């Protein structure tokens, strides 16, 4: 392990063994091979769609990949794409971040304070049971047809996923772990910071990953119900014109956004939980 001395016999051996096990059969790095295989699968799927459209199924119902791509290109060149994409991403990301912060803060607090949790639990459960979609008209009346009403809608959905998971996350921390750190001298605050909060991380991320999907979905729902901006609006207005290609173009944008954001959260999670082996 020393950096200055000559590597010992064992260190050379370890290096060689690690290299040999990493090499495998291919000269290419494994992640590149996997990426190539995934691309191939995607191309095959899109190819099948392209061929089926117009031959097996009428393009009116399923459009076709080449048309969708052309439409996306057209939107991008006309500049609409960025305006709508920006609106949707803004609503969902601001809503997601605010909702997560709120749910996390409240959840960790209630998790660490069982008496308060028992008191407000029925309220939490009731509000969670309330279908947020039914609240959308209220949010629109209160906050207008702009971004704010959609952000509020997204927050109202995200907050509960993170809230309940944070409470559970704190609760499931091993009592023996808590006792051992208390004996070593931890007060309430130190216990919270060093044991309860880090111990809840896995549960918080599980909640966040579910919440992320809903954040995107509800931002779009809000746009479909009212407004003149966002991917949801694009999809809705395309559907109004019986323009399947426009609908699929919008939907595929949402899919890609959802995928990328999910991947980002998974990366952060993997880093935060790197101690899990």
């Amino acid at each position, binding site marked *: 392990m020393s950096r200055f001395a000559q590597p010992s016999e064992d260190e050379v051996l370890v290096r060689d063994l690690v290299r040999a096990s990493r090499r495998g059969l291919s000269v290419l790095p494994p992640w590149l091979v996997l990426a190539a295989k995934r691309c191939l699968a995607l191309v095959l799927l899109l190819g099948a769609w392209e061929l089926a459209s117009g031959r097996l199924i009428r393009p009116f119902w399923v459009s076709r990949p080449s048309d969708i791509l052309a439409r996306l290109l057209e939107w991008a060149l006309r500049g609409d794409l960025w305006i709508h994409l920006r609106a949707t991403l803004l609503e969902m990301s601001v809503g997601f971040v605010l909702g997560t912060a709120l749910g996390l803060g409240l959840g960790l607090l209630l998790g660490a304070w069982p008496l308060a949790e028992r008191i407000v639990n029925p309220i939490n459960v009731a509000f969670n049971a309330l279908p947020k979609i039914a609240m959308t008209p209220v949010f629109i009346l209160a906050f207008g047809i702009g971004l704010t009403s959609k952000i509020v809608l997204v927050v109202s959905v995200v907050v509960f996923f993170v809230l309940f998971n944070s409470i559970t996350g704190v609760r499931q921390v091993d009592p023996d772990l808590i006792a051992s750190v208390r004996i070593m001298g931890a007060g309430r605050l130190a216990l919270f910071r*060093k*044991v309860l909060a*880090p111990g809840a991380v896995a549960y918080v991320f599980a909640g966040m990953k579910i919440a992320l999907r809903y954040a995107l979905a509800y931002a779009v729902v809000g746009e479909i119900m009212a407004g003149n901006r966002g991917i949801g609006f694009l999809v809705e207005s395309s559907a109004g014109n019986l323009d399947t290609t426009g609908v699929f173009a919008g939907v595929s944008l949402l899919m890609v956004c959802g995928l990328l954001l999910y991947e980002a959260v998974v990366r952060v999670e993997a880093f935060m939980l*790197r*101690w899990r082996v």
Partner: protein
Amino acid sequence: MIEARDVYKVFSSSGGDVLALKGINLSVRPSEFLAMIGPSGCGKSTLLNMIAGLTSPSRGSILYGGQPVIDVNRAVGYMTQKDTLLPWRTVRDNIGIALELRGLAKPERERLVREHIELVGLTGFERFFPGQLSGGMRKRVLVARTLVYEPETILMDEPFGAVDAQLKLVLQAELLRIWDKTKQTIVFVTHDLGEAIGLADRVVVFSKRPGQIKLVKTVGLPRPRDVHRLRLSPQFAEIYEELWEALKGEFAEERQ
């Protein structure tokens, strides 16, 4: 220093009530190394939990430094049988946590942690997470974590139970070496009679459940001790014989 006065403990669960301890009277002197031995489920660990303030007697009381123990007892360092390392902290950060809680400056903290990592033979594993270590290695991290902040009293519940026989001797010797310097009070629960005699000033033999004190034996062996050589001495054999005689009965009845 530590005193148990007529302590009883009943555990209630849906399965029924169990009497774990029955009329325990015991006092531990300052700087004493006391070992407790007895069959599984005889209440030894419960007694440690009470000294640590994690559970309270159903009747009677536990005094620490003359004061009844009513809340978590911060004067003790407790190495439980169960692995209570924080899985999200590296070896280094696990060992340093008590110093961190005491607000020790970073350089001082790092120095002490490094010393203790060396002490338990884990140099090179500082940045490993508990999940990446073997069971024996985790035990050694726990030992280091308990010793590093020099609590007034150390409670150890089968600390070397999962460690192989050879390493066990090394760690015992290390514990004695440290204790000779620091002279902390140690209450040590074990299943290993040889270990109890080799380490302790006094050995307390518990009966099977409901746990009662069957015998308290003062081990007169001179210090400093060589835990390995000691086992070959006739006095050791004599004490072993006497304690085994007392202990044997508890196991024999259990088998019937």
